[in-house]
């Protein structure tokens, strides 16, 4: 029979280790409970293992009972975390925030357009043509003439009001190149600042994590914080995260490196696109350009094309000008085209030329006093903006104030050359035939609008807006469901369950008590031995 020689206080140390292990576990539970409501917190677990058994394996062998355990020891504190779930959530949140930004903005656009409503453009158009019909029946009635020109003015102001409100929305998102300092107050600018702050913080955290890692500990809370920052970043822009073998991460936008480990390589910059100021009402570039601070963006070279997700992507998309998508600009252009078509025809009829030339045998148009329209005075109802006007034309139209103040100047009548002297030229009184033609514009197919009537064109524009908004809303809803589902799974992995912690707390408390009891018992044994000898 072999004798295993134990050191005298062998048991004390084992009990002590037991106490320590249970105490550490309790501290970790303490930490978990304290952080039950902390955003992004992953619950932590103490990893316990057995101590190295005694004696160690050597060449000298004892004919004895074998190795004796040396209590427990703490391997480390690990967090329950699933990096794959995180990556999935980042991807889906990115898409969700994009659609949310788009749908929120388009909903604002819908509010401005305000259809169906009595105060919308459709009703204004109807009222204008109604007034034309009435005028054609009573062209000698000054009150009815006044009403007609006021409805013409109302039509213009309704269009302009809507266009201005839409421009305001666009400015609040991507700034207005014609007004200094609007970019700095825009949502895109603020989002870029947020992104840059996040990049800085991630780089800093990377540095701290490396330091802790290097000393052999697990920087659990720092890792949690970094994961949270990465998620916030992905909500704003579609960056990619790459993990290196050493556990360090790099953050890239496309192929552009932004953060590598502890180093903040580059940040984002956003500038006003000065290339957008031009008189051509069709071309108008994206008002804001995003690029790297190291190579500032220009109209020719910028990163707008690769920012396709996140809040910034959504804002740039809906505030930009991509053909075939519903943007604020596309709605404004529709209003612009519509009003220009209306005003051209109305002006032509007022002047009696172009599309407004009277049918044979009539050779001109006349106002209430039998006068032909005079250039610079009453040949137009709507003055278009001068050439070189820097905005969409809709913003620059004005009503002819001469005609507004003197409705007799509206040319309701035809000039009939077949009427002989002494009544030559003018038919007076009830000739409203020119205005009757204006009233018929409401049902005329306009080539410039793709062979649609005014209101059909408007209806199509509104329907496109509605569909675009609906699509964005539905995508956002679907993505929200996906994100919710993934978040739930993540919570099930890393969330703290108070009941679980309570039970564990009791468990480790009992363990601690038991180890303490063992310590006391061994102490008694020691006392007995000592007392026996002494």
């Amino acid at each position, binding site marked *: 029979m072999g004798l295993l020689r134990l050191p005298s206080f062998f048991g004390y140390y084992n009990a002590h280790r037991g106490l320590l292990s249970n105490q550490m576990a309790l501290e970790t539970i303490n930490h978990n409970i304290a952080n039950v409501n902390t955003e992004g917190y992953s619950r932590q677990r103490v990893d316990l293992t057995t101590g190295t058994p005694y004696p160690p394996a050597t060449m000298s062998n004892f004919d004895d009972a074998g190795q004796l355990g040396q209590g427990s020891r703490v391997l480390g504190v690990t967090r329950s975390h699933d990096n794959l779930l995180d990556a999935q959530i980042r991807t889906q949140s990115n898409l969700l925030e994009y659609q949310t930004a788009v749908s929120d903005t388009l909903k604002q656009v819908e509010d401005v357009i305000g259809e169906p409503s009595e105060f919308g453009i459709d009703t204004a158009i109807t009222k204008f043509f109604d007034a034309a019909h009435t005028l054609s029946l009573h062209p*000698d009635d000054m009150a009815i003439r006044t009403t007609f020109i006021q409805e013409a003015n109302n039509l213009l102001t309704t269009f302009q009001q809507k266009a201005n409100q839409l421009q305001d929305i666009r400015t609040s998102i991507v700034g207005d190149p014609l007004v200094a300092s609007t970019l700095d107050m825009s949502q895109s600018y603020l989002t870029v600042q947020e992104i840059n702050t996040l990049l800085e913080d991630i780089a800093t955290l990377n540095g701290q994590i490396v330091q802790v890692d290097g000393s052999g500990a697990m920087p659990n809370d720092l890792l949690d914080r970094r994961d949270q920052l990465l998620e916030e970043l992905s909500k704003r822009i579609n960056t990619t995260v790459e993990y290196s073998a050493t556990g360090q991460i790099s953050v890239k936008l496309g192929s552009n490196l932004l953060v590598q480990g502890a180093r903040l390589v580059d940040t984002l910059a956003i500038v006003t696109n000065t290339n957008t100021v031009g008189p051509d009402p069709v071309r108008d570039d994206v008002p804001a350009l995003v690029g790297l601070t190291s190579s500032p963006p220009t109209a020719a070279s910028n990163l707008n094309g690769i920012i396709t997700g996140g809040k910034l992507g959504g804002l740039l998309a809906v505030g930009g000008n991509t053909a075939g998508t519903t943007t604020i600009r596309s709605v404004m252009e529709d209003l612009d085209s519509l009003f220009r078509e209306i005003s051209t025809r109305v002006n032509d009829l007022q002047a009696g030329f172009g599309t407004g030339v009277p049918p044979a045998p009539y050779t001109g148009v006349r106002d209430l006093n039998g006068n032909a329209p005079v250039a610079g005075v009453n040949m137009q109802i709507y003055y278009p903006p001068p050439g070189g006007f820097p905005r969409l034309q809709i913003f620059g139209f004005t009503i002819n104030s001469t005609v507004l103040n003197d409705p007799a100047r509206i040319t309701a009548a035809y000039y009939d050359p077949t009427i002989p002297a002494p009544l030559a030229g003018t038919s007076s*009184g009830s000739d409203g035939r020119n205005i009757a033609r204006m009233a018929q514009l409401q*049902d005329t197919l306009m080539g410039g609008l793709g062979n649609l009537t005014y209101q059909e064109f408007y209806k199509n524009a509104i329907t496109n*807006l509605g569909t675009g908004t609906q699509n964005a809303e539905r995508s956002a809803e679907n993505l929200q469901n996906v994100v*919710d589902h993934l978040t739930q799974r993540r919570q*099930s992995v890393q969330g703290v369950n108070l009941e679980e912690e309570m039970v564990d707390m009791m468990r480790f408390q009992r363990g601690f008590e038991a180890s303490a009891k063992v310590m006391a018992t061994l102490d008694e044994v020691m006392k007995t031995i000592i007392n026996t000898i002494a």
Partner: protein
Amino acid sequence: MSISRVSSNYLVEQGVSYVQNSMSMISKLQEQIATGQQISAPSDDPARLAQLLRITKEMNQDDVYEKNIDAGISEISAADGAITSILEVANRARELAIRGANGTQGSEQFYALAREVDSLLGQVVQLGNTSYAGRYIFSGFRTNTPTFSVAGSNVTYNGTPPTSGYQRTVQVAKNTTVAINVNGRDLLGEVTATAAGPPATVTGQAGLIYSLTKLKLDLENSDIDAVRADIDLITTDQNTLLKNQATLGARLNQLELTKNRIEDWRIVQTKQVSQIQDVDMSEAISTLNLHQTSYQASLGVLSRILQTSLVNFLR
């Protein structure tokens, strides 16, 4: 979805999100019930909004057409009445002409007939100057000018000549207009010069005014043969008047039929608009009750979850 492990926060978050869902449904129904409208923004239902815009535009246009039709009906009725009165005068004049052509009259009787024809002429001119709603309806476009003016024995037409565009029209449907007036000179003729004769000659355009002027002069000349010829003139004039009246009658018919069609169609369109846009109140309110109940239930569940914890059961 069954989850094997549930964190404490998750139960609460899930409970809150269910409550939020109920609240947003209630909010949407609230808006619908308060406004009575199903569609308050294009994205609610773009296809049906397009339909709605189309129908309301058509209804507005139909309202305008109806107004036009009413104006047309009123004026045509006035013209019709005037022509009826003129026909009565023409009948009387014809009788006088027949009597004059009889040959058994003495010069005093001829003189008396001539005086009566003169007064009939005056009535015709007055009827030719009929005005409705402040307009001289037989003047073509020159409705602020009296249609006929008398100077001596000349009766001049002052309106738009029938050789030029004189028809005033109203639009009653998309590409349909209806003329509502007839030309005074075509209707009643004109006298630009006279010569007492005998034989009396009258220059101008044929018509009742021309015929009566000639008749008066012939009677004053006791010219029986000329008076006999005048009877035929008056017969022709009566036909002209009847023809014009028939034209106006046909137009009146067209206007009334169109108006009836518009009124019938309006009923259909109103129903269509209501189907698209109106909220079914009873359905909405009962759905609202349903959601309110589920809202209260989810609040109840949430409060229970929040209160239950293992801590309550330990010691």
